[in-house]
């Protein structure tokens, strides 16, 4: 049964550019059919009053480790690219097909095909079969492919298939068993650490290979000044290379590791303050074009361990939007850019017709109060686990209502 058309009135519509403008948005079926100041509900429409709050595209999260629907919906996320690091890994068409269906109808999961069988970094997986089963891009998972020959063949193959390769950027020869960035903090805590250059080295090689292969390459998380400089230069040359980051790396530096806080154990690890500033600069100048939650809920059995034995990752879906709003308030980016980073750019990378409020696109829509204050609390999160380094912190920005393909969530 087809449900009635939807009109959201009295909002500030976030466009691709410029300040949000007053108006309404009308959806029919799963599509946006009209936007603007002159749009009014038609007879029989479901009508929602945005009460002057933002009407924004639903967030497209480019890289989550778990389909944690309550947390993703809390965060305004309507589409999530699922990392291939699952058990079993997303390295064959059957698991990809299953994952692609797992969130519907109110959350669309876009599986990222494992680049190599078992994510082991040696044998290229059946990527074309996975593409046709619903994989939207290819990912190396939590690790870097150390063998340059394998990486080049992968990039050439994916270029032919028209799929972007999403890679992790840490040179494994340098990182070894490191759990922290080589720095005063790691030295004082006695944690195995690796130099920041491990990231730039991986990035330098992968840019060279992508350029050679004519492939589209996306670095899921770039966290160091050196690597950002390389990417900025490559983008200037016209190489199809892009970069993302999670809020942890623009909010925190490695001083947060004091007292061995395992909620601050990430991969890549937290960096020094200068690198944190470089990440913010890169978001401001467009070198970084995607902000992702990296949502990875981990219970005490993975986190209440000695630091080096704990699993990396944070439950980030709920804080993705408010922490990105910090960048808007600090005037690093404007509101339109924030949603390009959170929705439009990741949607384009995945090749899905969503991520912006435009006629013809999927009606993935959020009403957002960008200023509403709330306190992050580990104990009260919607996520499957409360592993957030932002516990107890005040943030601003909350999703008030959410629609996926015109269907109201929750």
């Amino acid at each position, binding site marked *: 049964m087809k449900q009635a058309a939807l009109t959201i009135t009295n909002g500030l519509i976030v466009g691709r550019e410029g300040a949000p403008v007053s108006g309404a948005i009308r959806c029919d079926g799963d599509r946006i059919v009209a936007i603007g100041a002159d749009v009014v509900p038609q007879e029989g429409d479901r009508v929602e009053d945005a009460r002057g709050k933002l009407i924004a595209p639903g967030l497209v999260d480019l890289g989550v480790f778990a389909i944690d629907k309550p947390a993703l919906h809390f965060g305004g996320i309507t589409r999530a690219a699922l990392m291939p690091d699952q058990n079993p890994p997303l390295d064959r068409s059957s698991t990809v097909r299953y994952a692609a269906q797992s969130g519907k109808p109110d959350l669309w999961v876009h599986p990222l095909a494992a680049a190599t069988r078992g994510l082991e970094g040696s044998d290229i997986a059946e990527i074309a079969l996975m593409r046709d089963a619903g994989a939207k891009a290819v990912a190396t998972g939590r690790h870097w492919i150390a063998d340059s020959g394998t990486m080049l063949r992968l990039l050439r193959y994916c270029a032919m298939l028209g799929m972007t390769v999403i890679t992790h950027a840490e040179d494994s020869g340098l990182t*070894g*068993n490191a759990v922290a960035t*080589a*720095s*005063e903090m*790691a*030295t*004082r*805590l*006695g*944690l*195995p*650490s690796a*130099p920041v250059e491990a990231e730039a080295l991986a990035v330098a090689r992968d840019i060279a290979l992508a350029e050679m292969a004519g492939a589209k390459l996306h670095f899921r998380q770039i966290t160091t000044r050196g690597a950002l400089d390389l990417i900025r230069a490559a983008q200037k040359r016209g190489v199809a290379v892009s970069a993302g980051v999670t809020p942890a790396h623009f909010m925190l530096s490695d001083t947060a590791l004091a*007292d*061995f806080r395992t909620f601050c154990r990430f991969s890549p690890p937290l960096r020094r303050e200068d690198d944190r500033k470089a990440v913010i600069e890169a978001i401001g100048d467009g070198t970084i074009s995607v902000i992702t939650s990296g949502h990875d809920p981990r219970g*005490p*059995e993975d986190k*209440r*361990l*000695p*630091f*080096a*034995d704990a699993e990396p990752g944070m439950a980030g879906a709920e804080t993705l939007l408010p922490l990105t709003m910090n960048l808007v308030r600090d005037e690093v980016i404007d509101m339109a850019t924030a949603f390009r980073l959170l929705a439009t750019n990741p949607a384009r990378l995945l090749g899905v017709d969503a991520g912006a409020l435009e006629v013809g696109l999927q009606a993935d829509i959020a009403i957002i109060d960008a200023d509403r204050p709330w306190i992050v609390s580990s104990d009260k999160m919607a996520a499957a686990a409360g592993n957030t380094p932002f516990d107890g912190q005040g943030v601003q920005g909350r999703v008030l209502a959410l629609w996926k393909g015109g269907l109201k969530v929750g």
Partner: protein
Amino acid sequence: MTSANSSSRSRYPAGSLAFPHRGLLGLAGLAPHEILFLLDEAEQWVELNRQPTKRVDHLRGLTIINAFYENSTRTLLSFEIAGKRLGADVVNMSVGQSSVKKGETLIDTAMTLNAMRADAIVIRHASSGAVRLIAEKVDCPVLNAGDGQHEHPTQGLLDALTIKRAKGEFVGLKVVICGDILHSRVARSNILALTALGADVRVCAPPALMPADIERMRVTPYHDFDAALKDADVVMMLRLQNERMTGQFIPSPREYRHLYGLSVDRLARAAGDAIVMHPGPMNRGVEIDSNVADLPGRSLITTQVEMGVAMRMACLEVLTRKARKLEGWQ
């Protein structure tokens, strides 16, 4: 023998203000006067340990558990003797390095020990930060007997005590710590103690065994051992921790000795009365030559072991004062 408090009463804040910490997880964050307080407290136990009858009953009725998740001979023995000489009931729990060191087991073990109502728990673990994790889960004082590459506070204290008794003063004293600084918790605790007390600390290692930004810990890094040794008052040698190395850090023990081994000739570059220390176990012929390790009057390696027992007695006695309801410590 002087009583526990009389010698130090005048120099330190009264009661628990002299050492207002629940446990001893590390030397980071301890004030210089708190370190000196513990060193002074240890003196009486040095005296006691030299008497024919080496036993007091300060800790009578208290239970101390030594939970060692990593192999140890001398530290475990030292803590056991320290507890027994203070009159406590000492129980050793050795957990093989390979068996249970992961998962909830660590927290579960901590809660089990806590439920047994230990009055102090001494822990060694192969992972940095593990001792703190356990300390958060138990009600009694926890003493860190070495956690990964982080800290080994009683070793730092006993080394400071050894130096203090040999040299008297710390301020301006030139101390060289040479060896596997990267993997050494002994180095970190010594750096923290000695810099806090005013010593001029030099650390010496090849680049692969030198931690990043070590100069931020107020030490001077050296790669050239001969340069580091110049006019040194204290030469502390560390063992290569092969068990913590993944990959090749040095070409060979022979080559390591060539650059970093302490020989009689090398020692001559230090001050004429420089003392030689080593936390043990030694690799004779690698980082230290036998004739240096056994040099009478200069090598204090066995003195360190002696001070170890006294220092651990002081730590156990001070940290159990609250439980024993000593005046000013409740």
